[in-house]
């Protein structure tokens, strides 16, 4: 995926390809999410332990996964921008941050809602929950740092460095459930071979995950397009691209 980004390094090229790809991902996301919601809410069997309450898993787990996935992507894009001085990569990193923050927030919110019936409280200071909260702060920090620097060039480089440093937190969140025994559910899906989850439930979860993924790609492309346009606002191809529409 990242070599792919690297290849279309030039903004006009990127703009054209992104314009062409966005609707595909957008529609795919819509279809998958609708299917996933339907499947998750009506088709999947009721959990023997948690009854219907467990169905929030179809939002919680994909958004939690994406919050991590997006951060890693953001850091990779930032690193590419810093090392090879590709402006487009910085634009993509910048585009990732608010989306990642939203998914993190969604994961926290759905987690809290789920936690109330399950653990009897909205919030506990457990390692995974706290580290997910910290991830939200990392996103905020990235955005705040960008906002605080006037000069675009410096904002790009400084925030890229921050994103790279923050990657340390990702494994901590991911493996917090294994390293500390906590209230939170340990890995159930990712146990390869024999997942400890019913396959009827799992399939819809995976569909939701794919849907969220497509949604992310569609949004990030749109946002990156806007960034690219804004950065190149006085160049010729921008006028052509906008008039061509």
């Amino acid at each position, binding site marked *: 995926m990242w070599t792919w980004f690297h290849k279309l390094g030039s903004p006009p090229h990127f703009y054209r390809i992104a314009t062409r790809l966005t609707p595909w991902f957008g529609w795919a996301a819509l279809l998958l999410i609708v299917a996933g919601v339907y499947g998750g809410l009506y088709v999947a069997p009721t959990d023997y332990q948690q009854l219907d309450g467990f169905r929030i898993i179809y939002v919680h787990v994909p958004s939690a996964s994406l919050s991590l996935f997006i951060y890693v992507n953001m850091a990779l894009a930032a690193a590419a921008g810093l090392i090879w001085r590709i402006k487009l990569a910085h634009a993509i990193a910048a585009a990732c941050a608010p989306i990642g923050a939203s998914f993190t927030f969604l994961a926290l919110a759905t987690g809290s809602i789920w936690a109330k019936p399950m653990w009897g409280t909205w919030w506990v200071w457990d*390692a995974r929950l*706290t*580290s997910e909260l*910290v*991830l939200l*702060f*990392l996103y*905020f*920090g990235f955005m*705040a*740092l960008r906002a*605080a*620097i006037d000069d675009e*060039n*410096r904002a790009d*480089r*400084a925030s890229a*460095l*921050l994103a790279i*440093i*923050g990657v*340390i*937190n990702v494994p*901590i969140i991911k493996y917090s459930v294994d390293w500390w025994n906590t209230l939170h559910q340990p890995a159930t899906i990712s146990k390869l071979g024999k997942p400890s989850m019913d396959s009827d439930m799992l399939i819809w979860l995976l569909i939701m995950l794919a849907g969220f993924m497509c949604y992310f790609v569609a949004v990030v492309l749109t946002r990156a397009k806007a960034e690219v346009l804004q950065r190149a606002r006085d160049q010729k191809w921008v006028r052509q691209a906008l008039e061509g529409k």
Partner: protein
Amino acid sequence: MDIPGLGTAFILQVRRDLQLAFRHVGQLANPLMFFIMVTTLFPLALNPMPRLLEAIAPGVLWVAALLASLLAAEGLFRQDVDDGTMEQLALSPQPLALMLLAKTVAHWLITGLPLVIMSPVVGYALFLPRDAVPTTMIALALATPILNLVGGSMAALTVGLRRGGGLLSLLILPIVMPVLIFGARATDMAMTGVDPAGALYLLAALLLLAVSLTPFAMAAAMRISLD
């Protein structure tokens, strides 16, 4: 031309920063005062029941350590950048990463070391069980340099910016959180009689990681800030 060696440069930098700190004898006492203040204010602000104090002692110690290094980070490079000496440092033939590491070491000697030394006293004031004191000291000695190094990297990143209120803390805290968790856990383990070696090893590993990586992050950040 013969450039002085890395060791010489490192020592020069540490010595100059200490010299500057000793010029303001007041500044030297500040972090220490702060630390003492926080820990004495807690019993004041709370019900001074020994049992309660004992329960929160590790938390207070660790949060105080964190805040002390966090708040000092703000000023770690700012004055150097404002008065232009950082510019000259970036133009010296010595590697900037080394010089910034030296500055952080000096900073630790001024703010972190007194804290480590004072911790038994503070622990005593908060009725920390005596068995937990050595572990706490070791854990603090391992953790405070990490806090300073991470704080330094973030300070280098934000030094060109206006005083952003909490921006710096927003950047530092997420990254140092593991340090806090392991540190507090070490104290906790020692209090409950469990062997804290695991947590201490982890802290030591983190310290190694920080020492080997953050100087380069600091230097890169500083070059961006000076641009």
